[in-house]
């Protein structure tokens, strides 16, 4: 497995994914903010949460790049379209499983069926993260598709 490729392109793909999702927020497509949501796992300081979350998101981007690398090696299909397919599955998993699990482990995210307490104030994602806007599934799937596509295209 080509680790240096995964580190370099894992970084680039995570950056593109984060940028795409961030750009879709001012356009009113979604309110999902993965760095902010991850950052608030560690701190309730709104000034620090975004950059802590970005670092956490970057580390996760690298870890997922390793899984992509293993898949490319095992299938012998290191192409942009195969990467994009894995990205699509990855995005769907984030929407359906990842954010639901995050809801129960996040110390500051309100549970869907309980009243908010002083330390649980972040709006839960809901089914397919639709609480964050109807464009959320589309934005999440597309940006993960691009993430996978970049890894597949540049992994050698």
């Amino acid at each position, binding site marked *: 497995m080509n680790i240096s490729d995964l580190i370099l392109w894992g970084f680039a793909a995570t950056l593109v994914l984060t940028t795409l999702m961030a750009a879709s927020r001012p356009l009113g497509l979604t309110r999902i903010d993965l760095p902010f949501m991850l950052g608030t796992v560690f701190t309730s300081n*709104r*000034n620090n949460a975004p950059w802590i979350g970005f670092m956490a998101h970057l580390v996760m981007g690298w870890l997922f790049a390793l899984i992509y690398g293993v898949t490319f090696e095992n299938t012998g299909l290191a192409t942009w379209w195969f990467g994009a397919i894995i990205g699509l599955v990855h995005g769907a998993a984030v929407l359906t499983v990842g954010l639901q699990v995050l809801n129960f482990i996040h110390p500051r995210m309100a549970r869907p069926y309980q009243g908010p307490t002083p330390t649980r*104030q972040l709006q*839960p994602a809901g089914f397919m993260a639709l609480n964050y806007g109807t464009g959320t599934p589309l934005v999440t799937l597309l940006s993960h598709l691009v993430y996978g596509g970049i890894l597949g295209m540049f992994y050698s």
Partner: protein
Amino acid sequence: MILRNYTLIGNSRAAALVCKSGSIDWCCLPEFDSPALFAALLDEEKGGHFTIRPIGNYSSEQRYLPDTNVSEIVFETEQGTVKLLDAFTAQTEEQKTIALQPDHEILRCVEGVSGSVTMQLEYVPRLYYGKLPPKLKNYRQLGIQCTWKENIYSLHTTLPPEQLMVNETRVTATFTVHAGKRVLFALAYSSQSPAIIPELKQTGWYRMRQTVTFWQHWIADCNYSGLYLEQIKRSALTLKLLSHAPSGAIVAAPTTSLPESEGGGRNWDYRYCWLRDASFTVRALVKLGFRNEANAYLNWILHATRLTQPKLQVVYSVFGHATLKEKTLDWLRGYRNSKPVRIGNGADKQFQLDVYGEVLDAIYVYAPFEAPDRATQKFALGLGNIICKLWHQPDNGIWEIRSSIVRHTHSLVMAWVGLDRLIKLAENYSWKDVSLEKYRQVRAAIQATIEQQGYNTTIDSYTHELSGDMVDASLLTLSLSGYCNAASPRMLGTTRLIIERLSENDLLYRYRSITDGLTGDEGAFVICNFWLAENLARAGELEKAMHIFETTLQHASYNGLLSEEINPHTHELLGNYPQGFSHIGLISAALAINEVYKQTTVNA
């Protein structure tokens, strides 16, 4: 629904007007110039509101809690008495790091004082200035939410969810408050991220107390003691609400299209920042001891004008946007049927020579506290060069007259002030490579023009325009800006003529008989009365000065807020409300009166 019944609450990023009937009738989120969520002030039917008040007959009194920007309304009913406290949550930056907080939170606390009073809630938000109905969704304990574009607005309460009647466009509830008990409501706003749900049951009242303490600590920095202390503190607190903490800007007013005459068309959007206010604003803030705010405001001027430097526009948005396209909102009826309702401001394309002088004077006033750095020096010199290039050109003048451009005496005086301050800055801080001789020559040429053509010996007064025979109230600032002495014969003559021609019922119009290209009348201009009071005080006529000052104060709202204008006949407040410029004038005049009063008593 009259303006004097409204109190302003805010958090130095956004603001709302609360009526003494318990209704929030104006609120734009997340910024001052964002579309209004509640605009009943401009259209009771379509605008949207957020009302909490007793059912049935009641009487109400409204005030600010002392030294705060927290509104308190006391409702008296046959069943008992309740208090309603309203405020935007205000916390220190340190307090904000302890728990997640939404971008904005309006807290409303209903507290039983005596008996048991049945209250009603009506939450009727409307999107984009009442144009679009919301689609409210009830998430029960997680609030009642509506989303629009990247914005999410959510209503929360300590009432049980089943007590609320929710449909797509409104929330209503009936609830009883017993003596000593509290019911809390919060409107939270979040943008571009998952909504943050404010907790109310355990920490809502604590945040209200934090807010009270925040404001009390802030105003404690005011180092003034003397006459009119309460009015000065209220004006400072109002200016703080009109300041935009993230950028340092100060908006002229938090409202749009409150008319200069009822039913008239002189309705403008004041949710922007006018550079003409710069010099008076910095002076007022510095003199009261609010150096952080003065510094932030100067920094805003330096950065906000980047897109147009070295030229300056008349008006910018809080983030320095240079284009403020004017539009009308045809679906709104307007305040007391005063159409059109406008957003944006066409004054951004005007040329006002005086703003260059205003900004240079502001830099000069703040310089003793922080010597101008290289960027400020470059900026100031750029402004000086523009004055040298453009001083002989006609402009729209301080009153932004849209119909014609002429050579205004006031604009020339401010051009003189600009060069005068620039020369002093260059001398005091030993700026190198500055063509001081050029600035001195132009300053002398401007002064000669003013004295020869801007003063009419027939009427014994400075005039509105060169070679003219009319006066306007901006001439009162000639002495206030340091161009001449208030007790000089020429200035005394000008003051006398301004009172004679522009005064009615002891209130001063800014101009009369000057064609400004607009239909309809306007009221007396509040800041002009304060300029007059300051002139009279500085000319040694203290009693007259105090009379003019106090007459103007009598027209303020019950909570001490002033709009832009006053109707001299009905004594109603007119124009956008509350207006920063009026409160800056109040502070400046009160300081001058106090100074002269002290000298007089010492001499006596």
